[in-house]
């Protein structure tokens, strides 16, 4: 199997090998390769319709890939569904907050702790054991800064607070790998900042993959970035690598038909093909 071409020395926590997703004639994800080393933070970006959401859904286990493999810590999980992947330590957040809305914040996290460390099917209460589960849940709430909202119904939390609760929920499952799905969408600047701090403070045992539109957040958090355009991986590297990459800029600044330059001070801003790598040509 092909490891990342960037010469990873750290052990890969996530490996995506030639992943393809096809809907009939439409190829949403086209032979994507991805390697994320343990403990690192990796971002997945790309312009509209690049296939990020599809790739995310395949990684999370909600959609089955057409071909290709997904490995977590060396173990092939391609055939596993959401539940199976969650049990192997792959957790995802949801864009449209799918929390247990009618339950309090602590009860939300309790469900995750119970599932991980308790007996979620026990039909009678046990003071000692239930107390311990509650305490663990409270720890996670404190980690994300929601202690003061412990008993408040998830529905009554602000958007940013719900996102914090999501993180608490995910952390309570002791994940090895967390997939964040546009986590700062709909957040104010202050909430975004708080969220970024939260992610930065995650323990090194947690590997993070973030799909994001907000490039400030991406550049702040990501150690490596993969850029998708039209379903294909067009660039992978450090934030500086990606910023300088012509193909990436092409993909973002859709030039359309290229008779005359769009911008008068940059006559060379159109269709530059890298001589060595055909894969990086922006498909038209």
């Amino acid at each position, binding site marked *: 199997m092909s490891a990342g071409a960037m010469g990873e020395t750290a052990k890969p926590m996530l490996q995506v090998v030639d992943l393809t997703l096809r809907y009939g004639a439409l190829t949403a994800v086209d032979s994507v390769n991805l390697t994320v080393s343990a403990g690192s933070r990796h971002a997945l970006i790309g*312009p*509209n*319709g690049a296939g990020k959401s599809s790739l995310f859904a395949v990684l999370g286990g909600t959609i089955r890939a057409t071909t290709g493999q997904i490995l977590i810590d060396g173990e092939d999980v391609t055939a596993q569904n959401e539940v199976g992947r969650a049990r192997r330590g792959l957790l995802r957040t949801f864009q*449209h*907050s799918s929390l247990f809305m009618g339950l309090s914040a602590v009860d939300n996290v309790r469900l995750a702790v119970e599932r991980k460390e308790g007996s979620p099917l026990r039909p009678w209460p046990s003071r000692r054991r239930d107390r311990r589960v509650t305490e663990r849940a409270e720890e996670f709430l404190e980690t994300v800064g929601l202690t003061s909202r412990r008993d408040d119904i998830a529905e009554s939390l*602000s*958007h940013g607070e*719900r996102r914090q609760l999501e993180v608490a929920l995910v952390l309570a499952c002791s994940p090895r790998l967390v997939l964040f799905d*546009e986590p700062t*969408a*709909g*957040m*104010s*600047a202050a*909430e*975004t900042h708080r969220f970024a701090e939260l992610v930065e403070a995650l323990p090194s045992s947690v590997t993070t993959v973030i799909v994001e*539109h*907000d*490039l*400030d957040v991406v*550049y702040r958090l990501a150690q490596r970035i993969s*850029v998708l355009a039209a379903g294909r991986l067009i660039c992978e590297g450090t934030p500086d690598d*990606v*910023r300088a*990459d012509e193909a*990436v*800029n092409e993909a*973002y*600044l*859709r*030039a*359309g*038909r290229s008779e005359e330059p*769009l*911008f*008068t*001070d*940059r006559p060379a*801003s159109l269709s530059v093909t890298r001589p060595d790598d055909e894969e990086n040509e922006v498909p*038209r």
Partner: protein
Amino acid sequence: MNLSSEPASDGGKPSTLLEIADLVSGYGGSLVVDHVTLDIGVGESVALLGRNGVGKTTLLETVMGWVRPTAGRVLVDGQNLAGAAPHALARAGVAIVPQGRRVFAPLTVEDNLRIAPGRSRTRRAEVRAGEHRTWTVDSVYDLMPRLAERRTNLGSQLSGGEQQMLSIGRALLCNPRLVLLDEPSDGLAPAVVEQVGQVLRTLVDSGLTLLLVEQDLRLAFDLADRVVVMSKGCIVHRATVPDFRADGHRARELLGIG
């Protein structure tokens, strides 16, 4: 609220048709449109640019009444319609050509056009006063002969470009003064974008006011007088098209990979 940095609309009446003041909106408590202020004069054509997820579509949907704002005003001809139902916006002369076209698939082209609302009572008076032309199904067919050829085809049988034209035609039949367009080039081949662009150019030339969200910069520059760039829910840059095109670095910073 009129910003002095806004270039005055050239020619015609200097009156403001659409005034968005400190608008705040989002879905389910989230913050997507963050205190946006924007004026569009009669006959102007403004392109709304920005990367994905910055709130462009939400802004249009809030103006049209599909999303309820939490704060701010949307004034159409001086009348505040923030939070009003979409049909109130339509009656005030605002029409939208939404992203993804959203034509009625089981209906024919003809039916799609015929169910668009007719001339309202108030607007008939305006029409008699000669303020702006009135659109009929036939005049829509004149503008877009391709639609006439396909008048008996179902919405689902049309190509992307034809659907886009149908969507535009449907909006025109509301006899709008202001048309909101959300990424008309989305998913269309370059040649088709060209055709749609020609139709839109004709409309712009006829004096229709446009607020256009676009990622295809060539189309945007073709149609607009000025551009407004959004980032994370706010407007971060305003310029005329010539000025914007002269500053590629700025554009790349705002729209590219940063």
